[in-house]
């Protein structure tokens, strides 16, 4: 029987892989892909908990998360395109205007 912990472990692994991608990717869009993976893992978590506790709130939460993620991707990519237009690059190394 596949228990709750199996799903949660799977989700944790995907989350870590996504984190790895966020930390190491140079291209801004690559970073966004990593974020997608992390959010995905969160979704798996939510659905697994909802399934194993019989509570529907988890599923509703998942729906909301998916929606918000889509919105976030849209806005994020719009920003990336805007940056590209100004600086002609989307390499994360070169975007250091926050430098203090």
């Amino acid at each position, binding site marked *: 029987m596949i228990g709750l912990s199996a799903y949660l472990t799977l989700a944790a692994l995907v989350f870590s892989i996504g984190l790895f991608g966020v930390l*190491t990717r140079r291209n801004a869009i690559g970073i966004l892909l990593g974020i997608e*993976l992390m959010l995905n893992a969160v979704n798996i978590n939510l659905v697994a908990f909802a399934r194993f506790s019989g509570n529907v709130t988890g599923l509703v939460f998942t729906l909301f998360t998916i929606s918000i993620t889509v919105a976030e991707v849209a806005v994020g990519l719009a920003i990336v395109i805007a940056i590209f237009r100004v600086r002609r690059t989307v390499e994360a190394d070169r975007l250091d205007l926050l430098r203090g």
Partner: protein
Amino acid sequence: MTLETVGFWVVAVVLLASSLAVVLTPNLFHAVLYLAAALVATGVVFLLLDQPFLFAVQLLLYAGGVVTIVVFAIMLTERLVGERLVQTSRHLVNGAIVAAAVFVGVAGFLIRAPLEAPHPFQSMDTTAAIGRALFGPFAITLELLGVLLVVALLGALYFARSEE
């Protein structure tokens, strides 16, 4: 060895493999495709968890919408013609260590947490339950989500406008 177990393991392997590919492959375009695969695999996971509605939503919104948007963004930001989309990463080791540490931390909690036994499968129509919940206790949240989507739409439009 039940069907469920086999299915889980297959899906797990696919999901993990494609996730690794997303973060490791140098070609950005390939990374997006691998992401699509990972998203589909996640949908199948939802199926395994008896949520067909969510499986459908995942395919529609994620694998369909998000991947499409990302592809468009790639095309707009990289010079596709005559140039390979090469992507290198830096500080691989550092990232690996931190990511592994986070995983270990989470796993630590998992091991110690008392988890409930799985409920037997209820042939309840979960979709109906979701619908009732959305228009019941979560109605206001649903409306706010709508507002958020409008704002996101406006934001994306604003950022992506051409300079005139």
